[in-house]
């Protein structure tokens, strides 16, 4: 009880975190309820193209006369879901690889880290382009692909945490009791190292959103789905005459990424034991 309220107090003790949390809350609410309340189809051509905001189209229309607000609300869903799912996937892969590597060390460590290093040295976006061009670009494939290129940083972190815990005496004691490696890794060590993992994977949500936006901007994402990156890509052609068309989704991406980063930073401070002394 007091522990969790203590944690929340620490979390929101800085105004930047509070700001991030408020922003994130608004975006999440918009993503969940927006398309339910505002039921306009983002793909339907409803009016003249490139209209300025009006009562009928609160954020105007795009080059094909589609409602920009409807696009923004539906895009929020796509961005958040892709961001969360990709980050979750990357975190899971990273935890498994990092834990095995750090806990067992030796040959397993050498092999897994060689693979990790390979992924770290190849530029993520290039790898993504390869994957996306090989497979059909549905949103599921995109999400998996982003997870697939993002896990190495989690794996690195998890590995160093597990390696440091693997040599602690409580782990020896567990082995001495005959506990299985699986249980030691999952039930004994993992809870101790969750804090930094949570921080890294929350920040990874933001980078996954950016990556997805980059892909759809290039028109490589799922053509059946409206996302913020796709909207920027569409607006790009008329940037001189109708700049808001690209600017509105652009601002949304910046806000979402900023909000997630602020909250991630806040988590980092709140979960970091060294900061607790104050």
């Amino acid at each position, binding site marked *: 009880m007091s522990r969790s309220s203590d944690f929340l107090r620490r979390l929101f003790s800085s105004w930047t975190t509070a700001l991030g949390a408020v922003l994130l809350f608004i975006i999440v609410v918009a993503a969940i309820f927006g398309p339910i309340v505002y039921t306009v189809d983002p793909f339907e051509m409803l009016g003249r193209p490139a209209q300025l905001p009006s009562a009928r189209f609160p954020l105007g229309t795009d080059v094909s006369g589609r409602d920009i607000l409807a696009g923004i609300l539906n895009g929020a869903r796509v961005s958040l879901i892709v961001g969360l799912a990709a980050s979750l996937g990357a975190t899971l892969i990273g935890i498994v690889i990092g834990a095995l590597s750090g806990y067992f060390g030796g040959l397993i460590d050498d092999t897994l880290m060689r693979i990790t290093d390979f992924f770290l040295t190849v530029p993520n976006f290039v790898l993504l382009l390869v994957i996306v061009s090989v497979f059909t670009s549905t949103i599921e494939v995109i999400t998996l692909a982003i997870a697939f290129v993002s896990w190495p940083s989690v794996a690195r972190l998890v590995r160093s945490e597990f390696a440091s815990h693997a040599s*602690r*005496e*409580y782990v*020896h*004691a*567990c*082995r*001495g*009791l*005959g*506990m299985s490696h699986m249980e030691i890794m999952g039930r*004994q060590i993992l*809870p*101790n190292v969750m804090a930094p993992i949570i921080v890294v994977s929350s920040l990874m949500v933001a980078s996954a959103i950016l990556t997805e936006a980059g892909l759809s901007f290039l028109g490589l994402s799922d053509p059946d789905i409206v996302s913020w990156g796709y909207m920027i890509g569409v607006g790009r052609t008329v940037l001189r005459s109708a700049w808001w068309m690209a600017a509105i989704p652009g601002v949304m991406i910046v806000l979402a990424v900023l909000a997630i980063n602020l909250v991630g930073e806040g988590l980092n401070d709140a979960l970091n034991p060294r900061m607790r002394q104050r």
Partner: protein
Amino acid sequence: MTLLKVHKLVRHFPVSRGFGSSAIVRAVDGVDLEIAPGETLAIVGESGCGKSSLARCVAGLDTATSGKVEVEGTDSADMLTADPMRFRRSIQMVFQDPYSSVNPRRRIGEIIGDGLRLHKLVPRAQRAERVRELLEQVGLAADYADRYPHELSGGQRQRVSIARALAVNPRLIVCDEPVSALDVSVQAQVMNLLVRLQRDHGVAYLFISHDLALVRHIAHKVAVMYLGQVVESGDAAIFDQGFLHPYAQSLFDAAPRIGRPEGEEVELLEGDVPSPISPPSGCRFHTRCPQTIDRCKVEAPDLRPVAGRDVRCHRAEEMLARMMPPQAEAAFGTG
């Protein structure tokens, strides 16, 4: 029958020294030990002499480079492959650091209950009850079961470690400096707890320490180690008779002692312990030994019986003669 028999145990660690070259740390280099049921064998030596490496091999947490550990007549390596859980129930370990030896994220009750659960020693419904009993046995109130380690002091955490080991009713507990990190007044509490448990349950201890005075009261047998080898070992009587090996003597004399007469000059060892990567030739102690003779530099002494104990020193007989007045020697009956 002996409970534990350690035969010519060797543990070498290969280490890289950069630029592709490597070396071998001779952490444990041919150690023989024997412990009978209900007995305490104390291993004493300074840091780096291989005590913990030896302890981990005995407790089945590390594999010896060569040599053998037998538990109740069965080879421990065989037992660990054939019936690992039986081995775990025979030997448990208590560690030095009260902070890292308990998992900070788990409740005391869970930590102590792990052994009961893994070895299915009591039905699930009675586990909490058994944990309470164990807590009481180590002198902690039953309500500690719901607390987290950070709410406990160092001495209390060591009691938790002892209870965790005790949970599986082991025949032997390897105690690796269990009180070295505690204050003296708390040290005595934990030592007394160990003695009481031994008398109640007949558990044997391999008790590791760097403090000869501390083990004096609890040890039935003692072995002094230097650079991976036993240099003197025997039963507790040698505390009263005095040590024969020059290193064991120095270790005994160097410890500050309340009440030592002011004028009494103690001969101090020079320098530090040499690296176990390249131990000195001949007798490993010859670089610091006040008694060195030429023979010590070239010929490694064996551990051999002298005056009712085992000593690894060429000059053991001379040390004995010097230590004891002739009449005492006669009464002592050396062969």
